[in-house]
Structure formats: C-alpha cells, structure tokens
C-alpha cells in the first residue's frame, strides 16, 4: 500500500513538471507584451511625472505665469530651483520725474518691475519629482509635463532654464501652426 502511495506521489510530482511546461508552452504561442521602444511609445505617458515645465499665461504663450515669488525654491527639498528675478527697467526721465513727485507727495510708488522671472533655472539632475514646488506655487505656474524620454550626453544637458524652454516651445508651436495649413493643402 505504501509503495503504491509513493508511486502515485512520484507520478503526480512528475506531472507537476508537465503542467509547468504546459504553462510556458501556452505563453510561447501567445502575443508578446513588449513595446518596441524607439518605434513605439508606451501609451500611459499622460499621467507620468516627467520633468517640470513652466506654464504660460492664457493670453500669451511666451509669457510665463510665474510671479517670481520664490515659494517653489523655498519648498524644494533638493534645492534644484533658482528663480532669477528681473531687474527693474531703467525709468525714462519723465517717469523719474513722476516718481520724484510722488515721493515728494508721500504717495506709494507703483513698482514697475515685471513680475515674470528673467530665468527660472531648474537642475533636473537633482530633482526628485516630489511635486512639492507645484503644490506650493500660488499661481500654478509649474507642471510635470516635460519629455519623459529626455536624454542627454552630459549632466549640463539637464540644467534647464524653464523660461527659455517655454519661449522656444512657443516659437516651435508657432512654426508648426504656420506649417499646418500647407500640409493640409498638400494632402
């Protein structure tokens, strides 16, 4: 009896190997799951946090929403953001005069310094993509909408100036839009 039991157990053990082969055999014939990267991209990039980009104002595509308050740089855990504020434009003689008058009257002088930053330096090599800057921005000027496949040859390729990037992109889009009608006419 014992021998029969043992033999049955051995046979079922061997059968388990056949079951394994059946599983791999089944998947052998099924379609593959790989996305062949350079020719196809994964379809879920819309929710993926790639690097930061500056959001433009609704009116002007080249003008960043940023008001140079520096909250993001303060919040950043890895100190990868530097906001370079614009210097106040040199006042014209008339303006100077007006300011002097206002001061003499004791009125508050309206600051003419543009609020948008001159440069918004972003070191992607340090960034840990936590989103703290985005959450602490009072005007929603930052977004994780960058190029998920960003690649470069050196570290300095990832030291971005987000303002310049925004403007470049706006120019490129402008070109695309300009080119679009001709494409259509050709088609």
């Amino acid at each position, binding site marked *: 009896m014992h021998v029969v039991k043992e033999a049955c157990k051995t046979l079922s*053990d*061997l059968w*388990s*190997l056949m*079951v*394994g082969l*059946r*599983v*791999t055999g089944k*998947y052998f014939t099924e379609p593959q*799951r790989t996305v062949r990267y350079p020719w196809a991209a994964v379809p*879920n990039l819309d*929710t*993926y*946090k790639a690097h930061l980009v500056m959001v433009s104002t609704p009116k002007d595509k080249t003008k960043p929403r940023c008001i140079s308050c520096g909250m993001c740089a*303060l*919040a*950043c*855990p*890895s100190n990868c953001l530097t906001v370079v504020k614009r210097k106040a434009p040199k006042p014209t003689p008339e303006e100077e005069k007006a300011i002097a008058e206002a001061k003499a009257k004791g009125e508050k002088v309206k600051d003419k310094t543009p609020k948008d930053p001159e440069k918004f330096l972003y070191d992607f090599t340090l960034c*840990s*993509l*936590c*989103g*703290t800057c985005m*959450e*602490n921005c009072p005007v929603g000027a930052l977004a*994780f909408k960058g190029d998920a496949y960003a690649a470069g040859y050196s570290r300095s390729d990832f030291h971005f100036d987000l303002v310049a990037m925004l403007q470049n992109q706006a120019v490129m889009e402008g070109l695309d839009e300009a080119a679009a009608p001709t494409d259509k006419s050709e088609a």
Partner: protein
Amino acid sequence: MTRYTDMDQMAGDFYTLNFAKTAREGTLVLNLGPQHPSTHGVLRVLVEMDGEYVLRAEPVIGYLHRMQEKMAEVKTAAQYIPNMGRVDYLHALAWNWAFVGAVEKLAGIEVPERAEYVRVITCEFNRISSHLLWWGAYLLDLGAFTPIMYAFDDREKILDILQDPTGSRLTYSYFRVGGVARDLSDDCIRRIREFIPWLRGRLPMYKDLVSDNIILRKRIEDIGVIEPDLCRSYGATGPVARGSGIRYDVRRAEPYSVYPKLDFEIPISGLKDARGRYDVRMAEIEQSLRIIEQCLDMMPEGDVIVKGAPKPQWKAPAGESYCAIEGGRGKVGVYLASDGGKNMYRVKLRAPGYSNLSLFAEVSRGTLLADAVAILGSLDLVIPEIDR
C-alpha cells in the same frame, strides 16, 4: 600585469580579515557580493564554507548607506517625504505612510476619510507589486528565469494604476502630512476594478507554473527553519514572522487608518521554513486584493487632504511620536523627536529588513550554499531599506 605586493590587500579588507580571524583551518572563506546575482543589490555576505556547506555566515551591509536619518535633521517634515520613497523602493508607500503618520500623530492632524481609503488602496497595491517582484526575483535565485517576466507583466499593470494618482512608478512621494497629493481619478478606479479579477485569474497560473512544481517544492521545503522564539529574539516581523506561525500584523495588532473596518485575514503558516514564508506572501496578495475591493465600495466622497495642510516651512510641535505600519517586509516604524524647530530633532527609521537580515547568520549555519541563497531570498531583502 600588476602583482599584489601588499599581502593585506590580497588577504581582504577589514571585514574579511575580521571574519577570517575566527575561521577554522582548512575552510574556505567566500565573499558573496557586494556584486553577486543573488544578493539583490549591494549586500555582501561573508561565508565560511566546508565544501558546499556553510559553516558560518556574516552579512556585511552599509554599501548603500545614505544616512537618511541625518538628512531628516536638515529638512523640514514636508521636504523629507521624497526621501521616504527611496528607503524601501519596493514598498515606498508604507514608508511614506509611516513618516506622514508619525508627523500627524505629533501634530494631532486628522486625515479626511477619503484620504485614508486612498492611502489603503495605494498602499495595498504597492504591497502586491512588492510581493510580485519578490516572487520573480526569488525564483531567479532558485534558477527559474521565466516567472519574473510573468510577475513583471502583472506588476506593470499595477504600476500603471499607481502612476495615475502618484505620477511615479517606483519611488513614490505621494502621501502628504494631512492626506495625499492627488485623488484617484474615475479612470483609475475603473482600471482598479478591472485589474482585480484579472490578477485573481493569474494566480492559478502562478500556482501551476511554480508553487506546485516539484523542483521548487523540494528546494524550499525544510530549509531555513525559523522558530517563533528566534523571531522574538531578533525582532523579525512581517511574512518572516507569519511564516513561523506568529499571527502578527501591524494592521491588526496596532490598528491604524480604516483597517479595523475592513474584513481580511492574516495568513500564517506553521511550516516555519522558506515554504511557509512563500505561502504567506502568495496568500497576502489575495488578501490585499480583498482589502482593495472593500475599500472601493466603502470609499466616501470628499477631500483627500485636510484644509490648511502643513506648508513646507511648517514647524512641527515639540514632542515625540512613533508610527508603525505594516510594510511588505514587516513592521515599518518611524520615530520622530521634534524640539519645535523647523527641522526634526531626531528621526529614527526602523527597517523590517534590518531585523530580518540579522536572522540570517543564525539560520544559514550548517546549510548548503544553494540553501543559504534560498534562505536569503526568502527573507525578502531590500538593501536600501536595510542600509538606509
């Protein structure tokens, strides 16, 4: 061609020499790692071998030490959250939660109910993905190359789901003091509902291909027996303790969040060997699916972050707190002491893998080398968590 001139250099570094001092005559002192296919990262294990038998083993860690606890002392509470995702990259959300939970305890912040459910759902998904990766990598240790690809196939789907609210795929920094960063979208919830039956359908395949396989059974049965008392002595928790028959799960023992409202079991195994730990993890996948299903049904509408949540420069009140969370590897604990300043005064991270790995020296004694590798794998080690 360079020849060694310095005999010390040839004999080995500090740890090798320290270890070899007490080695017996005629035995082989072997360095497994820090670069070795089965140590998953940069763990190094010094073993003294007699033929194929391991007489003594000593893990050498610290190759990935980043002094996370010091980093906490120069960052504010909100700024430290991204670090938590990098402690244990496989179950990052448990660490997120442990830290955020400790801060919330300290400051007495109440988390909105929906946020609690979102936390449970994402954390349990993260646990499944962690267990799936362990499963694949463990079989790689045992010489089966295919299961990891199937496990990754499923894991990718989980990562896609988690990517929706968190935006990341591995090192999440998703939890915030007082809630979570983003709500689950309707699309995400739909995908979760689709995913649960799908993974349930995959589990029998795992069983057929691997769990029932006679070669695997013979490889992991009766090796690495850990008695419950040994768990107590080393403070081993999680699947390692549960595989030894201890019904201990932080989710039940120190209930936090909405876990008391949820109906789930704590799988344990009385086998105490590597097979027991294997079975516990496989059963936990099913239990996590159950938890997620219930959460989806019970989740209320509402905010996911408390109003007036702490800003980055927020100062935690003075005091201390300890928050324990059940991670994929065991009890994740974060201890905070704050003096009321901007930065934390002291943060202590209690890594479950640290305690579990310290068991290894005792358990591996007298086993075959192949078994020692199988035991090491069955402890489910994540080196960044151990080294911190």
